[in-house]
């Protein structure tokens, strides 16, 4: 018998129907038109291995929808989903016990009670043994530096502190497969760093598969070994992180604001790197080794009011992929 893949999605279709209704009293008497929006259409995906997998894509790409489908919270219209060898929509106990799910912008903790009370409840629901529970809780809360906050009501915690407590809640039953939907959303650099470290630590220590979504390439590149890029419900790229890096090159985005409107022709040999130009603003995508040359060229030949060098944004990466494979 062949071993089950961690995640196997075949011919998945999913659309949301929503009604557009006027707000207030008017909305009570009007049904509004039904609107159907297809998110996935004949989507296929197969993921395997005990590793951190980065799921990236711009807003509305369908990342959250995919995770909701994979965890069985919502039903697909068509197609087959298998996760850890189970059909998630059946919600079998043995499946759910191996699954952890954190939605970055939703609180899984009781708002008015300290985190410890929520953890205690999870202990009962997941039937975690007393000793294992205490060990795990101590370990995780030390690692995430929230051990002094366990007895403070959740509503009094800062966003970053709360997120770290939520992370504990998602991992407390030592799941084999964990979905983290934007765990670093709206957090400062230090909190982000702590969370990333924890993700890597957990993956190694417990041999788990962790799927992390994000908008930021950098976020993913530091934690994930494998990367999946999603755009408009379509798989744009799937593969090793190094492959992504080599495909997109070690490129950087350079944004320039000229003092006065500039023409393409004036940019000489740097024209091929120019991705956008409107009046006095330009955006280049250049290999790392050209950065110095280009900035020198720009500063000597033009008068410049602003210049920024950034890592590639996800939107740029996606555009590049579409150009490569027409």
């Amino acid at each position, binding site marked *: 018998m062949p071993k089950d893949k961690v995640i196997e999605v075949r011919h998945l279709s999913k659309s949301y129907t929503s009604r557009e209704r006027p707000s207030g009293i008017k909305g009570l008497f009007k049904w509004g038109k039904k609107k159907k929006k297809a998110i996935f259409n004949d989507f296929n995906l197969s993921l395997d291995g005990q590793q951190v997998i980065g799921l990236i894509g711009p807003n509305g790409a369908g990342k959250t929808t995919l995770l*909701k489908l994979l965890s069985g*919270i919502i*039903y697909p219209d068509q197609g087959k989903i298998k996760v850890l060898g189970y059909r998630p929509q059946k919600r079998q106990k*043995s499946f*759910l016990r191996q*699954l952890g799910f954190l939605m970055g912008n939703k609180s899984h903790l009781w708002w008015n009670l300290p985190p410890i*009370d929520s953890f205690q409840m999870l202990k*009962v629901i997941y039937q975690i043994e007393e000793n294992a529970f205490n060990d795990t809780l101590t370990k995780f809360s030390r690692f995430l530096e929230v051990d002094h906050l366990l007895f403070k009501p959740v509503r009094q915690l800062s966003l970053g502190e709360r997120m770290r407590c939520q992370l504990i809640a998602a991992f407390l039953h030592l799941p084999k497969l964990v979905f983290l939907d934007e765990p670093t959303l709206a957090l400062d650099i230090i909190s982000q760093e702590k969370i990333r470290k924890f993700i890597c630590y957990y993956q190694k220590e417990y041999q788990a598969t962790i799927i992390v979504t994000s908008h930021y390439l950098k976020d993913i590149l530091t934690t994930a070994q494998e990367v999946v890029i999603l755009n408009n419900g379509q798989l744009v790229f799937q593969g090793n992180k190094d492959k992504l890096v080599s495909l997109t090159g070690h490129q950087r985005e350079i944004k320039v604001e000229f003092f006065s409107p500039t023409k393409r022709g004036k940019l000489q040999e740097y024209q091929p790197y120019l991705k956008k130009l409107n009046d006095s603003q330009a955006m280049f995508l250049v290999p790392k080794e050209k950065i110095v040359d280009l900035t020198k060229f720009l500063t000597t030949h033009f008068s410049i009011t602003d210049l920024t060098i950034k890592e590639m944004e996800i939107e740029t990466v996606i555009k590049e992929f579409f150009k490569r494979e027409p």
Partner: protein
Amino acid sequence: MSWKRWWLIGYSFFKEETAFQLSFLVSKLREFINLIVIFLLWYALLKHNFHLKNYTNQQTLGYFLYSFVIGQIILSTRLWRIGDMIISGNISALFLYPIKMWQLFLSWDIAHKVINFTISLFYLLPFLFFFHLTPFQHFTLTTYIFFILSLILGSLTYSFIVLIFNSLAFYLTEMWSVIFLFNIFLSFFSGQFFPLDAVSSLLAFSPFAYVNFWPSRLLARSELPPHSILILAVGFFWLLIFFLTFTALWRTGLKKFSGWGE
């Protein structure tokens, strides 16, 4: 599932509900005052030669007191939150727990009922004492059985009515106005305002009668109603209808459910 697990789950949900201890106490105090007002009102009416058909004065007073306590068992439920959880999408978190949904709901509700009932005993005792009311006076084994069955029947019937309304949240977003009206309707037809058989015996066979009237009547009059088997049979028939309606609504609802809108 072990009894301990049931209790711990129920208890931890209860802890969340009473996180604001003061407001919990105040709401209990309000109930107590409500009870006194209703009771004194009826006391005054009876003093002025107003009598209910089929009920002696003592039985009338008893009826309202017991109806209140029965309400603390049957009508106290946490299930009203489910609708809001569906609309906000927060119910997704419960879908991820490795526990059957009905077990979760049932353990919430049992804990909730046990605690509410225990507290209501404290108000019950002074009333029993001052008005010389004696429940369970001529109870035989059959009366006890009927009483317990009618309590279970009432609790389940009411739970499924509540669940039906809450699963409407899968389909509608404006349901609270309907629910508000229904609750007024229910307090009327379940016999919280008057004993149903003092007005019409037809009312006593409506599905809502099981939610409060039958067990209260039994305590007030200390005797089995005529056709008690038929009464129970009709009750279970209604319960079955509610149960089937609910499962149909819930199953289709789950398929339509879109979770947290992100």
